[in-house]
């Protein structure tokens, strides 16, 4: 199981990446490699060239900008997890990151790479969706910011055009009067989530996002429901996700996980309203 041949381009600037993506046919950005490398080895991806972006200093920053944490494309998951302000500035992200792969893969894998891959059970796209974050993409044609709800368009499919690179993702920071919680269930820690839940609540607002069930992370506003209505609303939400049977779990088991973990996650988020 070895990759097919490709040219290796080591980009020294963001402009290098833009030019390569625009000029080279079938080029792919290589960041941490934790998803692209297996795809190359299994020959699920056969790009003509890979563009290594990890030596571009400008992409390696974590910064707070306009009420959001901006995480550059070369920031590894372990680096964000170790960012001292993380838990204070965005507790949902701090709660979800330890569930991304294993320590050994978080040391290489990037935050933006997970968004680019858009696995429906991945935690980082789920958190972006729950928080109504956004993805900053750019190319020779210019830069644009795409809301998470519009970025993840289907199974491992995103709104990024072929000539665009992800330059950063933006996670909105903690809002006063809000509580956040995250839960995930898989067969073993570090496995793909059967179901993952992220809740963002305030006294008047309930937002629940679910990963691992539909073809992309999906969020629903459940505000204005009393306890009884909430259970019904989550049940409706669970059915709307069109769960399917697979090797790991049946559709009905996944719906049951959404119902149980959904309500639990909302309760936990309410308990930590700041």
């Amino acid at each position: 199981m070895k990759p097919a041949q490709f040219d290796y381009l080591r980009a020294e600037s963001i402009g290098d990446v833009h030019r390569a993506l625009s000029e080279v046919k079938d080029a792919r950005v290589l960041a941490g490699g934790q998803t692209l490398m297996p795809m190359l080895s299994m020959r699920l991806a056969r790009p003509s060239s890979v563009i290594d972006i990890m030596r571009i200093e400008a992409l390696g920053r974590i910064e707070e900008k306009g009420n959001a944490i901006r995480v550059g494309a070369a920031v590894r998951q372990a680096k964000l997890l170790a960012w001292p302000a993380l838990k204070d500035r965005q507790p949902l992200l701090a709660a979800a990151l330890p569930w991304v792969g294993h320590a050994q893969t978080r040391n290489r894998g990037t935050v933006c790479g997970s968004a680019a891959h858009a696995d429906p059970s991945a935690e980082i796209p789920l958190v972006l969706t729950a928080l109504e974050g956004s993805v900053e993409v750019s190319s020779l044609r210019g830069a644009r910011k795409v809301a998470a709800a519009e970025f993840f368009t289907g199974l491992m499919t995103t709104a990024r055009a072929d000539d665009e690179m992800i330059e950063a993702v933006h996670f909105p920071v903690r809002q006063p009067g809000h509580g956040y919680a995250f839960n995930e269930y898989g067969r073993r820690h570090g496995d793909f989530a059967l179901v993952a839940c992220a809740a963002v609540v305030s006294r008047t607002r309930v937002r629940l996002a679910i990963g691992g069930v539909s073809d992309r992370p999906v969020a629903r506003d459940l505000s204005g429901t009393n306890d009884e209505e909430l259970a019904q609303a989550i049940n409706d939400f669970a059915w709307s996700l069109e769960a399917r049977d697979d090797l790991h779990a049946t559709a009905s088991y996944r719906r049951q996980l959404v119902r149980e973990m959904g309500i639990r996650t909302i309760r936990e988020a309410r308990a930590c309203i700041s």
Partner: protein
Amino acid sequence: MHKLAAASRHLVRFELNGKAVEGLAEPRTLLTDFIRHEIGATGTHVGCEHGVCGACTIQIDGVPARACLTLAVQVDGAKLRTVEGLAPEQGRLSIIQESFRKHHALQCGFCTAGILMSLDAFLKANPDADEEALRENLSGHICRCTGYAPIVAAALEAAEKLREIRNA
């Protein structure tokens, strides 16, 4: 932009267990194959080749990572450490290796090199790690022989011994 052409072999240099090494690699050459076939250090094992089993785990610039999910050309200039770098000298084992032997924490030994490289870094960064934290770190490795209990026992004892040395 620096371009390495697909069909050619390119010079790759890095530090392996404190020694400068170099060899030639195609862009597509995986670091596992480069270390084993080009450099000749066969302690690092190749298991699943897609990042799941953990057998190929080595330390890249001080942190554990999957060598099979890394291209040889990516680590040009890096500092690498593999299982060959653990023992302090010929004929002696490191503390973690010794406690693996004592607790029968390996049977066939295929997964062992990767687990040792993870634990070596993990116990350095988290000397007071409890069993739960150790188990979570070990979740990045698959062992089909031991059932993990002896590995956890060995890791806990190694952690204690390392703490004693640190405090002495």
